[in-house]
Structures are given as structure tokens and as C-alpha cells.
């Protein structure tokens, strides 16, 4: 049980700056998720928290105590890796108990904690198997079990589910969520899958090129993305961006006012989520259908505007369109996101 504090953390490998300046407070018992595209520094940040990577600058505290000078074991953390990182020559029981045995915890206590963890994760029948005799999901469970056994203050997960197939990933995601509810520990979870981020997180930290773009609850990020990058990253299919004009605090597309924004002026970008577009009789977006994808319960309509811009709309599965057919879409003003030329959100 502990808070986690990052203060002005910087990291560079030689001349390459990987983390620019990171300051963040994670509350006790919070599940925080780092998301961002590949190579943006999520793993590096996590590894610095774990103590596997040194800091170039800044401080890290866990439970109010500075830990950035401590070796990994003494930080009160446990980490679950993408590749599971199980010891191939030890069986499940051996893997679960290894850290405790090494730390000199007495046998009965180890036994108790290992059994407890294996029960939580449903590993009890697999205790004598070697990692190579386990399925991917089972291996991941052992990896998580190994972390639980250590009873850490902070759990660190580095893309723990990316090596699993889609169905298993959904299943394990739910298990991790349940685990968090049950143990109530502080957790830091790295992923590049925004669905995982949205479903698991108490708060999400969006990374890009070693910089934090936005920190907030999933809904905050969804409803009020701070910039175009976050807006495009959160939500699926991704948000549409359309060129627009702001005149006298009215945001116009093709001569039609869509919403109003007091501080907007000149050229702006209008962001519209596919699920917020609705079919209309005449505009403000008119064009022709370029692709119509039917998924059963819902459908994606890809529309080309006269000036060549593309829009994707998420529609009800009842609809049906054919390629080349003219169509028309609209949006409610409260669903409009307006960004300035630099890509930042403009307040209403």
C-alpha cells in the first residue's frame, strides 16, 4: 500500500533523450496505465521505477520514501513482464517461491503465500509443471503469481498481455481488474492497447516521444482530450479531423455553423468521433460512400467529402449503403472538439 511519486524524472541513453521531464503522483491503491505508441518510453519509465534502469535526473519515491538509489528488491515493487520471464529450469512452485526463498523468508510462510497466490490465480493443479509445459495464459498467470507472492507495495506490469491471443487477452484483462479490486494495491500498467487502458485504468497517462501528453481518467481523456494526439489515440475507430473556420466564435464547416467556441479564431481543426456522427437529410457533411463495412450490430460508413477529406461514422447495424451512394452526416454541437493550429484543444 503506497503512493508513487515521480519528480522531474529525465532519462537519456547517450545523446538520445528518452524521457524528457516526468512528474506524476500516483495515489495509494490507484491503477494507473501508461499508454502511447511504440518506442515512446513507457517501458523505460517503468524500468526506472523498478530500479532496472538508472535515472539521468529526478527522483522517485514510493510510500513517501525516496527509492531511486535503492536496488530493485528493496523498493517494495514487483514486476510482470511481457515475455513472462519465468525461470525455465524451475517448476511453477519453484518460480513462485523463488524470491521469498532468496530473501530468507521462513518455509512455512513461503508455503502459505505461494498457496494463497496459486489459489487466487487458479494455479493449484499446475504446481509441479515446468514453464514449457504451460500454455501462454497459464505462464502469464504464474508471472503474476510470482509478483503477488512478494506482497509488494506497487505492482508494475509491462505489456503483460501482448503475447496472448485476443480472447485470452480479454479474459486476463478481467482477471487483472479483479485482482486489483481484491488486493487494492497501487499498480502501474504499461500497454499500447487503448482498449486495455480504457477498461483497466483509474487514470491514464498518455505518452508521446518521452513526454506526457495528458493525464486523466479514461472518461476525461475521451471527453476532453487535451490535444489532437490524445484525441486520435483514445477511442476506436479513431476520431475524424476536419478543417474548419472560426468566425466570431462560430466554428464553420462548408459555410455551416457546427458549434461555437469563444476563443477560436481563424483556421482550426474540428474533431468528431465516429460514434457521434448521425445520418441527416442534408449536411452539414455531404459526400459519397467510399466503403461500407458491416459488422452485424454496427456498421462503419466511410465517406469522402467533396474536397477529398475522409470521414468515418459508426452507425447502427440496421443501415445499409452501397459504394458511390451519396449520403449526408451531421453532429450535435456538444460532441464537437475544436483544436487550434498547433493541435491543442480550444476551450469552449
Amino acid at each position: 500500500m503506497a503512493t508513487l511519486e515521480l519528480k522531474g524524472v529525465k532519462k537519456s541513453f547517450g545523446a538520445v533523450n528518452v524521457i524528457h521531464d516526468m512528474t506524476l503522483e500516483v495515489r495509494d491503491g490507484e491503477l494507473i496505465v501508461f499508454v502511447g505508441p511504440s518506442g515512446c518510453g513507457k517501458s523505460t519509465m517503468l524500468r526506472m521505477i523498478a530500479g532496472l534502469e538508472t535515472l539521468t535526473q529526478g527522483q522517485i519515491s514510493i510510500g513517501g520514501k525516496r527509492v531511486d538509489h535503492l536496488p530493485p528488491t528493496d523498493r517494495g515493487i514487483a514486476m510482470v513482464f511481457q515475455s513472462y520471464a519465468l525461470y525455465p529450469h524451475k517448476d511453477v512452485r519453484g518460480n513462485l517461491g523463488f524470491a521469498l526463498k532468496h530473501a530468507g523468508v521462513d518455509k512455512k510462510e513461503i508455503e502459505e503465500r505461494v498457496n494463497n497466490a496459486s489459489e487466487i490465480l487458479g494455479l493449484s493443479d499446475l504446481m509441479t509443471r515446468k514453464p514449457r509445459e504451460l500454455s501462454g495464459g497459464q505462464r502469464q498467470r504464474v508471472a503474476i503469481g510470482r509478483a503477488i507472492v512478494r506482497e509488494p507495495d506497487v505492482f508494475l506490469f509491462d505489456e503483460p498481455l501482448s503475447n496472448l491471443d485476443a480472447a485470452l487477452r480479454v479474459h486476463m484483462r478481467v482477471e487483472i481488474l479483479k485482482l486489483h479490486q481484491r488486493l487494492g494495491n497501487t499498480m502501474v500498467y504499461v500497454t499500447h492497447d487503448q482498449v486495455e487502458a480504457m477498461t483497466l485504468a483509474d487514470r491514464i497517462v498518455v505518452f508521446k516521444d518521452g513526454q506526457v501528453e495528458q493525464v486523466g481518467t479514461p472518461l476525461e481523456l475521451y471527453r476532453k482530450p487535451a490535444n489532437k494526439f490524445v484525441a486520435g489515440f483514445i477511442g476506436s475507430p479513431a476520431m475524424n479531423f476536419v478543417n474548419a473556420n472560426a468566425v466570431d466564435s462560430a466554428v464553420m464547416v462548408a459555410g455551416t455553423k457546427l458549434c461555437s467556441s469563444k476563443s477560436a479564431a481563424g483556421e482550426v481543426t474540428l474533431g468528431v468521433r465516429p460514434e457521434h456522427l448521425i445520418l441527416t437529410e442534408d449536411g452539414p457533411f455531404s459526400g459519397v460512400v467510399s466503403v461500407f463495412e458491416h459488422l452485424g450490430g454496427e456498421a462503419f460508413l466511410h465517406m469522402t467529402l467533396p474536397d477529398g477529406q475522409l470521414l468515418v461514422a459508426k452507425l447502427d447495424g440496421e443501415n445499409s449503403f452501397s459504394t458511390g451512394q451519396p449520403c449526408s452526416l451531421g453532429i450535435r454541437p456538444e460532441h464537437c472538439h475544436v483544436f487550434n493550429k498547433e493541435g491543442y484543444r480550444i476551450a469552449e
Partner: protein
Amino acid sequence: MRTLAKSGTEQTHRTPVRWYILVFLAPATLIYTVFAIYPIIESLRLSLYQAGDGQGIFVGIANYAKLFGEPLWADQFWNAFKNNVLLFVMHMLIQNPIALALAALLSIPNLKGAAAYRTIFFLPTLLSVVVVGFIWQLILSPLWGISPAFMNWLGVGSFFKPWLGLESSALITITLISIWQYVGIPLMLFYAALLNVPEETIEAARIDGLNGWWIFWKVKLPLILPTLGLVGILTYIGNFTASFDLIYSIQGGLAGPDYSTDVMGTFLFRTFFGFQAQLGDVYMGATVASALFFIILVGVGLYLFGVQRRLQRYDS
């Protein structure tokens, strides 16, 4: 604020010395440096000296001038060099194609008995050249070998020749024996490379309408080109150094008959230790070794910059 700033600077300066890296690296580096690299460099240095009172005297490239200038030395050198080149060419033309062919057959999926064949083909490689040399003398000797009787039995007795004893055939016979022994090494390397060709690639080729033979030529062979290059350079190095053992144990230090099987290794050995009437000479020995060093360097250089660069690696 003050404490914060202080600890911040402390931190950037505090990188503990990682002694364990030294502990892991030092023993290997030390033994290797003292017993492999130092002697080679020291030999290069000695090649610039000649015997004097007590210590050697620096003579510049006089030893090399002698080695390449005086007919007594130059004839021996070029004879050994020529034999080495022949040895290398014959290994490339005979040993490596055989190895490739056998490896290709062995790597046919689901081949029955593949493990047994593999073990058998590698067996001769395991043997000491002393053993191999003796085995083949036992077979080929005109006096006490079994070939004469065996060939008589086949009715081709009149074709028997003391192959190891004739100037015209000694080197090629030695080559064939060497191939018999060492074919296992390129074979293993080819075999491993062929097994590493991804199954999907082969299946894709099959779908494209290629059959077994063409798959080998058009798909597998290009993919194992780097291994071909590696085998080439290993053959080259082996011929210039390891060929000593077989020739010494079959033909002795004089590499008979009449130096027809003399190679750089035997030449170096004779120069260094002396043989019969000839006296051993440390400095000329070092000179021959250094010449050999440069020959190998040229080969390795050609390989690294010419062959290997062009042969693209298709890793993973």
C-alpha cells in the same frame, strides 16, 4: 528546496563501479591475451630479428628478403604455398559440394534414419588425424595395406598404385583423405542452416509451383548463402594451418615424397625445429609464421569486405 537540489546533483554523480563486469571478463581476456594474442604479436616482432649474441638483433625485413629472395627458401615457400592453394581449391570443389549435397538430402523433411546418417557422417571428424592417417595407410600401403588384395579380389588389381608414395598422386590422395575426415563440419553447418529455412517460405514456394529440386536451387540455396561464405573462409583457414597434422602423421615432417605434399604448416615446423641436416631457426620460423599470418589476413579481409557484405543475411 536546498536539500532537493543537493540530492539531485549527488544522484547524477553516483554511478557505482560495476566490478562484476570486470570479474566476468577478466579471466577469459587474460588467458586469451597472454596465450593467444601476445604470442602472435611477439612472433610478428621476432620475424624482424635475427640470432645474435644472447639477444636477437633487429634486422628489419631482412628475414622476409631471405624468405622470398634466396632460392633455397623461396622455392620451399612457393612450393608449400602452391600445395596449400591446391588443397584449398580441391576442398572447395570436392568437399563442400559433397557436404552440401549430403546436407540437402538429410534435411528432407521426415527422412527416415536422418539422425543415424548424421551421426555416421560426423564420425570421421571426431577422429584424431593420427588415427585417420594410420587407417588410410593400412588401406593404401603397397606393402602391408589391404587395397592390393582387395583390388585383386575385385579383378582390378593391375590398377593399384602406391598412391601415397607417388609424387604425382600423393597430394590428391592426402586431399581425399582429408575430405573423408572433415566433410562432417561443413555438412553440419549446411544442415543447420537448411533446417533454419522457415517452413512457410518453402510452403509458399511449393504453392508457387516449384518442386523439390527447384525449391533447393531457388529458395534454400540463396537463403543459406551466408553459411556458404562461412564454410569457405573456415576451409581457407583450416587448409593453411590444420593441414599440418594429417600430412605430418602420414608423410612425416619432410612431407614426402620429395616435398610434393609440403604445406605451410610442415614448412613452418621444419624451419622452426629443424629437420635432419637442417638446423632450427626461431627467427625464420617466426618469419614463415608471419607470412602465413598475412596470407590468412588477406583471406579473412576478402571474406569480411568482399564476400560477407554481399551475402545478405536473412536472419529471423
